[in-house]
């Protein structure tokens, strides 16, 4: 808790910057509204105002800046406006409503978790193959690194086309859109798991491996009693990264795939229909989801550590 005060101070500074930035960002809209209401604004006509710098406008119309934090369709909505919209999206609707952020969040979360599960299986499987077979290490590992420098969004539409034409969704009995989003999320999340698991599975030192051999342990026992438990701390550290990456994948996967549901789709809709508040609210909903997921992984880690008798 030593860090609580500095963290709060930094958050307060960020909030202050946000409030301050609202003034120049929204000054055009504020002055337009004020001029329509008949107030005196300098300069008087809209084209002149457009040509003037935002900061000059602020300096010349100091008595109007009070309206900066409550503009409709603001370029930069104020924190309480965003909070209000977030509240409206989360608590003021039934969870099943298409306007509820919880509803869209659940859809994105579903893809995130499906992608994470897939990424875990691929990552752990590849890590085991790489640790046990030198040929896999030599031939697959460089490509795993290169795969992460390929921007997945470029591949996203292709993944949709492929999974649709293969009918992956129908065969597995789930929605096609979920399949493509989950694959994209898995593509981003398998790599941290892979790197962490390779490190973890290789972490037992020669002494410990020798001890297992003196006990006449089979390869399977060596894996399940020594290598796997030893790799758990590494796995949880990379899971925190993987969960965040998976969420990014699920959101990005909604953009070019023509999704109409989910937080990413909500952002796209809000941007096309000019609803900045909804954009910000979806962004914050995504941030809350990311924070929540990382928290869950942390709790899970504590639970597993307790069961295994790890002393913190």
């Amino acid at each position, binding site marked *: 808790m030593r860090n609580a005060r500095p963290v709060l101070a930094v958050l307060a500074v960020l909030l202050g910057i946000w409030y301050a930035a609202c003034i120049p960002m929204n000054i055009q809209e504020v002055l337009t509204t004020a001029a329509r209401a008949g107030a005196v604004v300098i300069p008087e006509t809209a084209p002149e105002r457009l040509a003037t710098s935002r900061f000059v406008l602020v300096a010349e119309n100091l008595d109007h800046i009070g309206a900066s934090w409550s503009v409709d369709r603001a370029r930069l909505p104020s924190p309480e406006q965003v909070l209000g919209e977030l509240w409206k999206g989360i608590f003021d609707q039934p969870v099943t409503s298409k306007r509820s952020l919880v509803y869209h969040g659940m859809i994105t979360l579903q893809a995130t978790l499906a992608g994470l599960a897939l990424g875990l299986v691929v990552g752990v499987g590849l890590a085991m193959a790489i640790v046990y077979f030198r040929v896999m290490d030599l031939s697959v590992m460089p490509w795993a690194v290169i795969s992460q420098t390929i921007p997945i969004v470029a591949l996203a539409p292709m993944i949709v086309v492929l999974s649709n034409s293969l009918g992956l969704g129908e065969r597995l009995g789930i929605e096609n859109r979920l399949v493509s989003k989950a694959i994209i999320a898995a593509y981003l999340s398998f790599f941290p798991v892979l790197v962490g698991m390779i490190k973890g599975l290789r972490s037992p030192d020669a002494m410990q491996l020798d001890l297992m051999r003196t006990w006449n342990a089979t390869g399977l026992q060596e894996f399940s009693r020594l290598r796997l438990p030893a790799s758990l701390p590494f796995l949880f550290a990379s899971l925190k990264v993987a969960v965040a990456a998976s969420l990014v994948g699920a959101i990005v996967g909604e953009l070019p795939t023509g999704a109409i549901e989910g937080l990413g789709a909500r952002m796209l809709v809000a941007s096309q229909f000019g609803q900045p508040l909804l954009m*910000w609210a979806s962004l914050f909903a995504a941030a809350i989801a990311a924070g929540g997921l990382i928290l869950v992984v942390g709790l899970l880690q504590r639970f597993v550590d307790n069961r295994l008798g790890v002393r913190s």
Partner: protein
Amino acid sequence: MTAILAAIAFWLAAWATNVALSRSRMGAARTLTPAIFGAAILVLWEGIVRGLGVPEVILPPPSVVAVTFIERRDILWTDFVQTILKGAVTGYIMGCGAALVTAVLIDRSPFLTRGLLPVGNFLAALPIVGVAPIMVMWFGFGWQSKAAVVFAMVFFPVLVNAVAGLQASEPMQRDLMRTYGAGYWTTLGRLRIPAAMPFVFNGLKIATTLAVIGAIVAEFFGSPTRGMGFRISTAVGSLALPMVWAQIVVAALSGTAFYGIVVWVESRITFWHPSQRRRA
């Protein structure tokens, strides 16, 4: 059918070669094995697509993609300039530069550092791509909005790594600088910034991938009639899949090259670090 069998035969032969290579102690195995593996995948892809007669609108064979890549290189080049050079690289340089300057400024105050590290770590884990629609609204459809998205995406990972790096020098080393009579700036320039470099490059490497992703994603929210994201979404719409795959090739090549350049610079600057020593 013969095409599939030939491809599978090639795959098996390549795999056998790789197994043999991995057993030998040849120095070239480290570069040869992944190259053979990549080639085998391409041949397998080509063979299966041709052998099963998969239509081009689902999955074009690599040879068709290669032909498209060569024939449409003028379009690919315009898109590359728009998205990678103007959007990603500009945003990357500005974002990383701003993050490094901020790190040095913040580092002077231990209070701010302690507060900023957790906040920055948290922000770095958030789906910042989400700011793309907001940036497009603020900066218009041109490359400026893409650079702004890239800026927002790379800022926190680089900042967090740089701040952590500036604290990496040991108290003993800092004491030694003080006995030499070095002031704050000399210590910063001669000891702490060099000591921070491995951390900084860690952040810079993560940021290269983010930069390319950010620049392409931002184009889905609005772009002029060029750019890789724009071309991908329109080409998918008109089922011109070889074009999409050619764009993917460009994205993969530029992503890898971008990463490679940063790794190369890192090896020149942090040549003293243990991780850069040549493997015996």
